[in-house]
């Protein structure tokens, strides 16, 4: 396996195949030779021969065409020389078949189509006008009754032709005082006839119908258009604003007043409901209660420092006023000590008798030694005696 792998070269990325052919097999390399004078001579001879050949071919073509033209002229001459024969036969029959009917006939199966055409030809041979008339009916018969015999086709065609003829006769009998037959050569007369017919049978009924469909003047319109009727209606209170004391002021007025009162009461009710909801919300408001509840604890939190500050302030102010004596004279202070606590409190404390050995800080409640000195001995606070 390993040897074969070594022998097979790796596949490259080429997508096409190249083939090298030995030059000896392919005819060798083409020698490049310069053009000589003889070559020019040969080329000139070739050109001349080619030109001669082309001329010959052109001449051949012209001879053939001339021969054909001569033949055609001879045939035309023969045709022209033949005398025209009198037309003794019937005029060529042009079938009066509409394109729609022709398509319907073409769409029929072969058998039905042949029978329809046979019947049509037979009918045309008998009565040409009726054949065209009954042809659509024959086509319909063929589509509705496939596989019918030619006799059935013919019977049906005859029946249809008879019906058509009967219908025409009845129509002619029912037309009173039929006008004289319109000459075919007067088309204007036919147009006038059609116009009169249209006018009598279509236009007048349509005019009457259109007139009857026009909007008629209503009661209120006629009332508004006629001043007398308008004033009278106004007096009667038809327009909703009858005059005071008029005839139409009873029922309508009461009804209007009732509706107006009801509307006003509805509005008042809505207003009261809205006010009630506001008052209910206000009555259940707890914000002030919460504020009052929070006020006392807040005061208690700061009560200690504030009390001391206030007391200290009083003591400071007392030194400036001597009740019962001149202002500025200090009253006998008694036994007062100055407290300096580690909590930051500093202020005097007075006792009626001699101060005790230990006092509590008014601010934080820490026990302090009276007469001590604040030091680094670990004692939190010390107090010294005052005066």
């Amino acid at each position: 396996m390993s040897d074969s792998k070594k022998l097979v070269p790796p596949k490259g990325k080429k997508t096409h195949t190249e083939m090298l052919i030995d030059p000896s097999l392919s005819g060798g390399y083409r020698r490049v030779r310069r053009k000589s004078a003889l070559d020019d001579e040969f080329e000139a001879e070739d050109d001349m021969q080619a030109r001669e050949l082309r001329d010959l071919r052109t001449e051949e073509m012209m001879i053939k065409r001339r021969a054909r033209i001569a033949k055609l002229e001879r045939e035309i001459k023969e045709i022209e020389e033949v005398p025209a024969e009198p037309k003794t036969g019937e005029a060529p029959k042009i079938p009066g078949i509409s394109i729609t009917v022709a398509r319907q006939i073409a769409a029929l199966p072969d058998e039905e189509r042949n029978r329809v055409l046979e019947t049509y030809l037979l009918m045309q041979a008998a009565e040409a006008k009726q054949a065209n008339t009954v042809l659509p009916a024959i086509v319909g018969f063929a589509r509705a009754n496939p596989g019918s015999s030619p006799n059935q086709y013919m019977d049906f065609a005859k029946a249809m032709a008879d019906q058509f003829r009967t219908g025409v006769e009845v129509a002619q009998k029912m037309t009173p005082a039929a006008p004289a037959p319109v000459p075919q050569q007067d088309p204007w007369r036919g147009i006038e006839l059609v116009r009169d017919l249209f006018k009598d049978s279509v236009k007048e009924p349509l005019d009457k119908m259109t007139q009857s469909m026009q909007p008629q003047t209503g009661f209120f319109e006629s009332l508004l258009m006629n001043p007398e009727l308008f004033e009278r209606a106004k007096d009667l209170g038809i327009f909703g604003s009858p005059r005071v004391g008029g005839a139409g002021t009873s029922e309508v007025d009461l009804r209007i007043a009732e509706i107006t009162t009801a509307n006003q009461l509805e509005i008042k009710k809505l207003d009261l409901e809205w006010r009630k909801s506001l008052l209910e919300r206000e009555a259940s408001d707890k914000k002030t209660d919460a504020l009052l509840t929070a006020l006392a604890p807040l005061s208690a939190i700061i009560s200690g420092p504030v009390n001391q500050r206030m007391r200290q302030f009083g003591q400071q102010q007392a030194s400036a006023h001597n009740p019962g004596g001149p202002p500025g004279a200090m009253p006998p202070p008694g036994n007062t000590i100055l407290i300096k606590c580690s909590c930051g409190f500093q202020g005097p404390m007075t006792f009626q008798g001699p101060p005790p050995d230990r006092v509590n800080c008014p601010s934080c409640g820490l026990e302090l030694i009276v007469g001590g000195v604040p030091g680094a001995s670990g004692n939190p606070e010390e107090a010294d005696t005052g005066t």
Partner: protein
Amino acid sequence: MPVETLRKQIQELETDIAGLEEKIRTKKAEKATAAAQIQARIFLERIFAPYMDGLCDVWGLSPEEGLSVLIKENVSLDRIANDNREALAEFLSQPEVRVITAVASPLGNVPDEGIKNKMTVLLEVMRKIRPELANVIINTQGGQKWFYDSLIGLRNILFGRP
């Protein structure tokens, strides 16, 4: 809806509204009284009483004695405070003092006429928490006037009214 029904509903609504308004009035009055009493209590406990205690500490008198002397000499509390303006300024700059004057401000933004009503409330509260001081103010001649003048003065000092 028929008019009669609407009238009846409106009558009921008006009755309900009248009841609610009365309830709100009563509640507001109760709250106002409670708030006034709380403020009065805070004022008395945190401001008035310690101040009197401080004064009397230095003078060597009991609060009742000091208060009686002040009433007799007609020396209001603000007058005493104004005698030492430096100490007053330092006192008012203390943060806890500013807090307590903001919280307990029964005298703040109150006109002189309103001070009389406040004084009534303060005396009522004082009779509960410091009855000995209240008795001195009530029983001493000129005591209530002195208290009124002192309150106006304290209002001017503590709550910024000139």
